[in-house]
């Protein structure tokens, strides 16, 4: 509960800091201090110290798992801000507003991870989405950005409509918004329930960019300013994933037989489309957009399996995937050339940056000793625990082998090709240090995943 209220307050604080503070570095410092406070509040909550006690009538319940997840998310946001906050200056003039929007998104994230009512889920998703529409179009002079924002807004509203329809149908079937299954709530009309469930499934699949609801993703990720693409593709995506799984775990467990087939198809199609299309990209940014679809395919295994292993896998995925992707996007945001050729010979001019990028790419590809491997490992383990899933798992690893193709293209460009005419940008030493921290984190969790997973149970 601490984080929910503090993040909303911090959003307002950031808006005023834009008026009061003239220096951009001061605004940045306030934002980083803010996220530190948020992180601290979340940890306090984990220790059982709650600053606010509000009766939400069981509509919001911060259980242990949600609190751990929130803490991890805030830590990732901290890393993201430390690494990428200076790059936001290049986007436009409203520096403080960007941070305000990010804090509002985090407020939505706190709702999406803790809802026990469909209304709260809807609120959370919308509080996340609307600032995202703005961030996507925040570079006002960029036509591609404008197009992306409009596309995102139109398609996003459409999926919101689907979601509301689904919620309405579910209310019709159960006469309650609560996601908890209790003897007091007996579904009256099963066909209404199924229809609502499928609509919710589609709406959530849209938000996590699972195929065949992924069509907005490449254009939006490509058009949005790179710093915000990074935020969207990592933090927002895993938060919505968490909500997705929480919803189906709480509410639709008895109907598992009905929705598992849908999820199987969505998983397989997502893995296929994400990986195969990524192979053909020429721009690293677009490749990462498709890669994020492909990784969503793997995250869907957590939903598919709906087991302890799957949740542990999602937790690891959150850190592994976010840390690696944030690192790559941060470097990409400073590159002048977004094509694969733009990375040619980076290892010669920037050996340190190239080495950390290699760690991130290996992690995304799922090579052992990186966190990405352990995350995929847990997902495969969870899926194998479900009877009759062998073919899906084999399909997934074949797709993982395909993914090596596009991740390694960057490595090949950096190490084995001669540099082109345009010189590579210089990277400040603090930035390099942060990259090292991220790479260290990726390797640490690859060797000792228990550091994170151990926190889940006590």
């Amino acid at each position, binding site marked *: 509960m601490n984080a929910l209220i503090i993040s909303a307050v911090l959003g307002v604080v950031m808006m005023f800091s834009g008026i009061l503070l003239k220096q951009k570095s001061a605004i940045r410092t306030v934002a980083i201090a803010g996220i530190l406070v948020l992180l601290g509040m979340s940890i306090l909550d984990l220790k059982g110290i709650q600053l606010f006690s509000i009766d939400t009538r069981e509509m919001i319940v911060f259980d242990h798992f949600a609190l751990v997840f929130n803490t991890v998310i805030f830590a990732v946001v901290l890393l993201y801000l430390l690494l990428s906050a200076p790059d936001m200056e290049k986007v436009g003039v409203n520096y403080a507003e960007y941070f305000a929007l990010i804090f509002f998104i985090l407020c939505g994230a706190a709702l999406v991870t803790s809802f026990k009512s469909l209304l709260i889920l809807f609120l959370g998703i919308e509080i996340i989405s609307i600032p995202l529409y703005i961030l996507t179009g925040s570079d006002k002079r960029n036509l591609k950005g404008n197009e992306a924002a409009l596309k995102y807004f139109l398609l996003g509203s459409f999926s919101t409509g689907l979601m509301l329809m689904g919620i309405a149908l579910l209310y019709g079937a159960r006469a309650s918004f609560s996601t908890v299954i209790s003897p007091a709530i007996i579904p009256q009309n099963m066909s209404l329930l199924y229809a609502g469930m499928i609509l919710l499934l589609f709406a959530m699949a849209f938000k996590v960019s699972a195929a065949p609801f992924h069509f907005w993703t490449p254009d939006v990720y490509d058009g949005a300013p790179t710093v915000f693409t990074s935020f969207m593709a990592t933090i927002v995506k895993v938060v919505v994933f968490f909500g997705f799984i929480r919803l189906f775990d709480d509410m639709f467990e008895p109907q598992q037989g009905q929705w598992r087939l849908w999820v199987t198809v969505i998983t397989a199609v997502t893995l296929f489309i994400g990986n195969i299309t990524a192979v053909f990209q020429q721009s690293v940014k677009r490749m990462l957009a498709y890669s994020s679809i492909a990784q969503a395919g793997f995250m869907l295994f957590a939903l598919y399996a709906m087991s302890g292993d799957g949740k542990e896998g999602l937790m690891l995925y959150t850190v592994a995937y976010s840390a690696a992707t944030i690192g790559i996007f941060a470097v990409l945001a400073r590159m002048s050339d977004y094509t694969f050729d733009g990375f040619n010979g980076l290892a010669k001019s920037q050996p340190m940056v190239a080495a950390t990028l290699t760690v991130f790419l290996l992690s995304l590809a799922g090579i052992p000793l990186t966190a990405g491997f352990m995350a995929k490992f847990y997902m*495969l383990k969870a899926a194998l625990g479900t009877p009759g899933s062998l073919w899906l798992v084999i399909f997934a690893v074949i797709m993982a082998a395909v993914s090596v193709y596009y991740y390694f293209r960057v490595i*090949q460009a950096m190490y084995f090709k001669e540099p082109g005419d345009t010189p590579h940008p210089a990277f400040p030493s603090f930035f390099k240090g942060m990259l090292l921290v991220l790479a260290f984190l990726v390797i640490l969790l690859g060797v000792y995943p228990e550091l994170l997973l151990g926190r889940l149970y006590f």
Partner: protein
Amino acid sequence: MIAFLLILIPLATGLLSFLIREEKTAKAFAFLASLATLAVSLLGLTLMNSESNLQFIAPWMSSLGSSFALKIDGMGQVLCLLTAIAYPLTFLGTWQASPKNANRFFGLMLLAQAGMMGVFLANDALLFYFCWELALIPMYFLASQWGGEKRIAVTFKFFVYTFLGSLLMLIGILYLQSQTPDHSFGLSAFYKLKIPASEQLWLFWLFFVAFAIKMPLFPFHTWQPDTYEQAPTATTMILSGVMVKMGLLGLIRWLMPVLPLASFQWGDVVMILAVIGIIYASLVAIRQDDLKRLIAYSSIAHISLMAAALFAENLSGTQGVMIQLFNHGVNIIGLWIIVEIIERRYGTRKISELGGLAQQAPVMTIFFVVIALANIALPLTNGFAGEFLMFNGLLSAQSNFKVVFTVLAGLGIILAAVYTLNMIRKTFYGEAVSLRVPVTELKLNEQLALGLIVVIILWLGIYPQSMLELTDSFSKEWFSKIDVSYLFRK
């Protein structure tokens, strides 16, 4: 402790090597590091071969049911010794080659050694899988950065092939782990499993494909000749001499004893693949003009024969494979050293452009002839003992088609003699070609490396017992695990 040191020394020295600035220092450092590993390996073989020294267990990922468990058994001794000897030989034999960024080159080489040692020693499936990949990554970078013209595409193919195979193996490992009563990745837990035959039949292929790609067996071999040709010679030596043994070790330790029924059932299929590989690779080798490619294809034939002998499932064949694991590695490194010397001195590896080397370099010729004869298993060379045992094993296999397999595999030996002797005739005898560089005889380091290899060849050719005793009890124990003949005795 010995087991742990065998991984720790190359790992630590490999990482340290990245910090060295001087090119010459890096080379000397790597050589000393490899000697240290060799010394430890020899200690484990002789003075400190007590159980406690050869085992190492530390907690690691215990919540998953995994642990950092290493153990040197009979086969482990042979393979660790091979890995430990291969590195000094490689460094010594290629001392003149000076790669750019030597510190990174030697660092990656040593890291690959750590990975391979891990594969040979791991007694835990997850650790095995980790090391399996760790050995691959440095090799990928080595071959892609310091290799020939087409290196990027070729080594990438190699990487994707192996990676896909290993992922399939991961599924297999995960499935087996879920079947163990206490959800453990330990090797002993896997050995205790009694998987129903119907499940063994498909599980077999998840593992087999991974190992077959690594060895490589027909039809998974297509990456191999290109990679051997394009990789820098020192890397090729390690790839062909040591790394291919990872596939065979996988079969011996992780596949056949765990899934004995399937191994028996699919034995004929594997034999057919192996025999096709022997004949096909030998025929292609005859047509090769490039020395590197010729040796690459010859290696496919040899490895295929070893796979066939394994699936003969008897003691003689197994012992033959054990000794051949070592012999093949040493012999092929010897061949590469000479190819490297020829290429550097004469500027070409094409057989058609070479000739009459015997007049100009008699000492090299003697070395080469001895190693080449060992490669085709002439009596009194190390290859003979191994191949004799393997053919003996093939002939007493359970299969209905054992005679056909043995005859066809034997044909491979004749073909091997054809291409090897043909190569010697064309390259070392015949008319001398005009040279680009003035001829010099072998340098001291090359003489040392080749001399050592010849000593090993003759030693194991005359007295193979010394190696066979090492693996005797291992082979017997292994055979008792894979033996399914009780099913036929009623």
